[in-house]
């Protein structure tokens, strides 16, 4: 055996072992996962097994027919690309395994799955949740894993296709049993819709149209052009996702954003008008939040809740004139201003993309119906009662899930002390007491969501009689 061949066999064996170390499941029978996670982990395992078979065939071919030695280096580099691909999967597998059903808010995830599945083109979708050590939420990947998977299939023949309509979402490991902060996942679902529904293709035409209006467009180099396109695409997608999230669950998303990034603490700094390479300025984002909330009618409700400073903050940031937005790029200094101007010209088109995506599934404020349900949810929580079934004027109803979530969030923001006053030994200024009851409110709301899910499932049962709400 030649030295080159022996080296090749050693390298392929190392890669074979590396792939196995990623896809082989640890023996942890006590953990159970949602079906979407099981599906994702199964995909990785099948991909790994197929890759290992491919490697063996690859080596066999090299042994049987050594061929043109001058081509060997071209072929060898392919192993490095396969290794890098598995290096990217390496980051996804363990966090997905860690996100078992006891460490994620299952009732909320199921609610999101049902809601998202009603959007045209996203029927049958599901969310595979994984954990991250970052205090943030991620849509993983940005279209890339599917793209990789397609390319990988072409390179490693026989590879399984990436599961259809599967959104891979990362959430902070510490937030497994909470609700409110996790509402930010709705933004990540926007990325999923953006990718799955091919919004990028229609947006890229708009991006090019707006770029053509820039002076010097004809003389721009290809890297400069792609840099401008990338900024416009990133910023537009972020705005799309924010509007999508508000369109899905109303103001609760904006509240969660404020809380996650402690916007109250940072809103007086100059940073709020600053654009970043991949994200628009907070002032710009909240301008879009407010516009989306107004166009869906939610602002009528927020105007009646003056006790939370969150609403004031949204208004304040939304009121910052666009002329004050800034973007400094160390990479392309001279293009920073023009690309920001181009974005502001492009931005109004994003609202219509979200309208076209959600259509009649856009959750608009339902006026008195929402006011009544939100009021009742708050009242129930004020007495420490899970608001699954609401009784008003001797009539039983079940709340709409979005009304439930918004009612609970408003209660948490404005009225937690009302609950604490009713409980002996609880001090409003004790942070540990307050923290405990805030957790309870989230827990009760998740329980109510779970109850609503059971009800909707039983209603969907074929040949079964509809369940009366009083049975819950």
């Amino acid at each position: 055996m030649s030295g080159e061949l022996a080296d090749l066999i050693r390298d392929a064996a190392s890669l074979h072992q590396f792939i196995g170390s990623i896809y082989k499941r640890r023996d942890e029978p006590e953990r159970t996962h949602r079906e979407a996670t099981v599906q994702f982990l199964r995909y990785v395992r099948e991909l790994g097994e197929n890759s290992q078979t491919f490697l063996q065939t690859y080596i066999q071919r090299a042994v049987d027919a050594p061929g043109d030695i001058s081509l060997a280096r071209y072929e060898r580099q392919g192993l490095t690309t396969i290794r890098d691909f598995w290096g990217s999967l390496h980051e996804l597998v363990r966090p997905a395994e860690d996100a078992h059903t006891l460490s994620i808010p299952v009732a909320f995830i199921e609610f999101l799955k049902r809601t998202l599945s009603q959007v045209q083109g996203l029927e049958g979708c599901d969310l595979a949740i994984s954990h991250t050590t970052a205090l943030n939420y991620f849509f993983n990947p940005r279209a890339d894993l599917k793209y990789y998977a397609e390319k990988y299939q072409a390179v490693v023949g026989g590879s399984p296709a990436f599961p259809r309509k599967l959104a891979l979402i990362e959430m902070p490991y510490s937030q497994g049993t909470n609700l409110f902060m996790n509402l930010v996942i709705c933004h990540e679902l926007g990325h999923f819709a953006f990718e799955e529904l091919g919004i990028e293709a229609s947006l890229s035409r708009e991006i090019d149209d707006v770029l053509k209006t820039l002076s010097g467009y004809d003389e721009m180099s290809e890297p400069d052009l792609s840099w401008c396109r990338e900024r416009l695409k990133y910023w537009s997608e972020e705005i799309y996702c924010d509007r999508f999230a508000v369109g899905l669950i109303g103001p609760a998303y904006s509240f969660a954003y404020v809380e996650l990034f402690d916007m109250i603490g940072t809103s007086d700094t100059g940073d709020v008008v600053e654009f970043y390479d991949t994200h628009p300025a907070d002032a710009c984002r909240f301008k879009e939040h407010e516009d989306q909330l107004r166009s869906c009618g939610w602002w009528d409700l927020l105007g009646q809740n003056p006790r939370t400073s969150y609403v004031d903050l949204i208004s304040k940031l939304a009121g910052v004139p666009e002329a004050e937005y800034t973007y400094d790029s160390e990479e392309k200094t001279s293009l920073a201003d023009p690309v920001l101007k181009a974005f502001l010209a492009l931005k109004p088109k994003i609202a219509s993309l979200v309208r076209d995506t959600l259509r009649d599934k856009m959750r608009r404020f339902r006026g008195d119906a929402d006011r009544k349900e939100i009021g009742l949810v708050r009242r129930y929580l004020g007495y420490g009662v899970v608001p699954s079934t609401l009784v008003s004027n001797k009539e039983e109803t079940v709340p709409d899930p979005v009304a439930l979530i918004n009612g609970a969030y408003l209660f948490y923001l404005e009225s937690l002390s009302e609950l604490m006053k009713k409980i002996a030994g609880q001090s409003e200024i004790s942070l540990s007491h307050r923290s405990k009851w805030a957790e309870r409110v989230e827990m009760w709301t998740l329980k109510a969501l779970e109850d609503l899910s059971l009800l909707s499932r039983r209603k969907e049962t074929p040949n079964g009689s509809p369940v009366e709400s009083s049975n819950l």
Partner: protein
Amino acid sequence: MATFNDSRSQYLSLALFSRQIIDALLDLVRSGSREKLGKALPDAIESLEAATDSRNAALSPVASRIVTSYDQVRTIDELFPLDDRRQMIKTLKALETANPNTEEQRNGALQAIDFFYKIENRALRNSRHPAPKPSRVARGLCPVN
């Protein structure tokens, strides 16, 4: 926050894209098989056209993906001047149909293999050692990988 991972992802995409066409061309050189080439070649031509003259390229989803990725376009641009890219587009187009002059076809395929090998190589290198980015960190929900 997402910048590093995003760049890595773009480079890995570029490496896989290059590997697909390299493998297809290797099959052509070794055995004359055009089976993999049928799918890989149009994508390669379209993507290279988009990275070379995007103003006049028809931006299909494949091409759009290339032209909105600064790291990918910059990598190709750093490796090959415009004229070399245009010449390679011609070479790839010539490979779309079987050439009775097998020696000429083989030479064209070898040139193309070497071209994409260099792109794959640079993409892999950049993926492991991304160029330093501006230090400002994005606040943000979202994309990794």
